[in-house]
């Protein structure tokens, strides 16, 4: 719901802000406009991304004897950590529609926490509370393809886009921070331990696929097109490598086990694209 509101707000803002484009759209077409109806663009883009991991079947290394399993269940912190993306864009534009291939290197970061507590039966004030915060970084090279539609013509062109992607893992790691309160050792003060980081590439399958949609705005400055966009990715497959859930996870020995999960991601990027066809002074196309 939060994502839908965000995307809706961006779309409305763009429509209002660039209403000037409507006037440009209505003017009489000239040779330049005719030329611009078909174009190839090549560009670079940089941005940030926020990720959520949506658990489906849940797993844990802990099987409690005398308290509900839900007490030690993972709590996911959605869209909480900003990470980066960088890529290129190859776009073919024709009559307001574009096919855009946007290969990129994208980092997905998500976090969950587990909490455990123990106490002395005869004196419950003697207790130990532990919290494991586990951060995951998965680096993907992504091959998305989008169908874009420019809502308006002119220098400023708000657009919408839908597409699909295939991505493959190039690296992953996870780290765990343990903190807690140990009232059994004579202090109420919290404690923390050093962060432990392990390689986690084997914990995820190589492939990730999904569908994507977003909004954006392109703005022409001389021969350069600046592009701002926001994209929401909806992962369709479980990214956890179920075969290695316990066997290749060193942190399994402290009770960690990845859930079956699908990724959701919101990315924001800014890019600049250059036309690959030019027009000469006598209105001739130059590739």
């Amino acid at each position, binding site marked *: 719901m939060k994502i839908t509101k965000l995307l809706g707000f961006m779309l409305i803002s763009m429509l209002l802000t660039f209403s000037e484009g409507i006037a440009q759209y209505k003017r009489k077409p000239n040779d330049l406009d005719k030329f611009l109806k078909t174009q190839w663009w090549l560009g670079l883009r940089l941005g940030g991304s926020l990720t959520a991991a949506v658990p489906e079947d849940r797993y844990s290394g*802990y*099987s409690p*004897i005398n308290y509900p399993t839900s007490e030690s269940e993972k709590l996911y912190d959605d869209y909480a950590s900003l990470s980066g993306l960088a890529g290129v864009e190859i776009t073919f534009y024709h009559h307001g529609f574009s096919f855009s291939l946007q290969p990129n290197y994208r980092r997905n970061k998500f976090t969950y926490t587990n909490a455990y507590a123990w106490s002395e*039966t005869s004196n419950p004030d003697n207790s130990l509370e532990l919290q494991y915060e586990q951060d995951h970084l998965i680096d993907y090279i992504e091959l998305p393809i989008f169908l874009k539609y420019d809502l308006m013509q002119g220098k400023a062109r708000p657009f919408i886009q839908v597409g699909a992607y295939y991505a493959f893992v190039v690296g992953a790691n996870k780290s765990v921070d343990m903190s807690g309160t140990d009232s059994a050792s004579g202090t109420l003060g919290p404690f923390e331990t050093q962060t432990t980081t392990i390689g986690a590439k084997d914990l995820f399958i190589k492939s990730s696929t999904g569908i994507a949609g977003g909004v954006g705005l392109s703005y022409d400055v001389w021969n350069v097109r600046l592009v701002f966009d926001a994209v929401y990715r909806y992962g369709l497959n479980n990214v956890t*490598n179920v075969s290695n859930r316990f*066997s290749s996870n*060193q942190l*399994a020995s402290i*009770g960690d086990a990845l859930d079956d999960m699908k990724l959701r991601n919101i990315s924001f990027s800014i890019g600049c694209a250059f036309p690959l066809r030019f027009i000469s002074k006598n209105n001739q196309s130059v590739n």
Partner: protein
Amino acid sequence: MNRINKIVLGLVFLSCLSCDISDNEIDPTTSFLKIYDHNSFEASFIPIDIKQAATGEFLILGARRIEDSDFLGVFLFKVDEFGEFVSSRNLSDQYVHPVKSLINIDEQYYFVAMNSTSLQATLIAVDLGTLDITESPIGGASYPLHVSQRDSEILLLSYNNANKTTDLSIINTDGSVGTGVSYSIGAGEDVEEPIIEHFTRTGKQLPFFAGVTNNGVYYFNGFYNYTLSLVFTDLSGDATGVLQGQQDNGGISAAQHIEGSTFALSRFNFGDNYIVPRQEISTSGLTSSSDILGNPYPELVDDAPVILDQITVENEEMLLYASNTKTGKIILMAYSSANGELKGTKYIGFSDPYSVADFTSTNDGGLAVLGTIEVAGRFARISLIKLSKEELNELK
């Protein structure tokens, strides 16, 4: 190559890469690691043995600390085929000192504990469904040390405090005693001290065990003539052969008969540990364990407990050793039964320390390793690590 071919090639490449999506499925019973946590400081769990039932459930026998007793109490623990906790039962404090191993005769489970008052060994039958028990006192046997089985024959190793003897008996499922022999541990009060300290856990935990070879030679590892020794007998009189240790400072820590007079062994000697995957032993003479060389394993804890069994991995007989490292991990070492060659090792554990209690082959061809983990470095909890058949094959 024309453009269409390039596109087709690209699509084929992508579809190959994404094969892992459709292949990303596994039966969750094949591989897991479970920690059975209790949220009380006082909860105490010392796992001893594990067996998997034909239904896939695991039955775990363990000991627990009890107040006002020098001995450990008994608990039974059941988990399902996914490793999830199902039920547990703390037995009455009248039953203490459960000993390895769990016996399975036609899906009826038995173990041996001791009556806390009479110190008599008691055979206890367990209903796997309800964990209800039925006891059968074992006539004349006290201080049980180990129980094992060959087919439907139950072999009990025990200590007779009155006569100062190590007793080896064949018992029946109703607790009656069949054939048995007794061997003196030696004269004097001091001789039994390590045995009593073993029972009260105030001293070293000693590797008592008993078994029978394929050719019908019975053996036990127990006190014999002042020394922890591996003793061979035909259950009809004097010992036929003795492999002597060094009082309680050295001796055999695990043994598995391979063929003829060849055994797989591990031994300890004043803290050091040695793995001996194939060793000819004279079952009819007097020899010394310190004369057996073996592979030194300095990474194991001092006088390490060793679990040893022969298992089948991909149709090949392997000797699997499990023990505890100084870094708080469980180590599995697989040796070829045929030539004693080390085939592979595997470590279990990362930050919180682990120690091994037992392992057992599972119905699906994998392995279940039972151990203890010190959760948060301080709470001893039972852990169960299930290795799939494929993971086990990596040891080969």
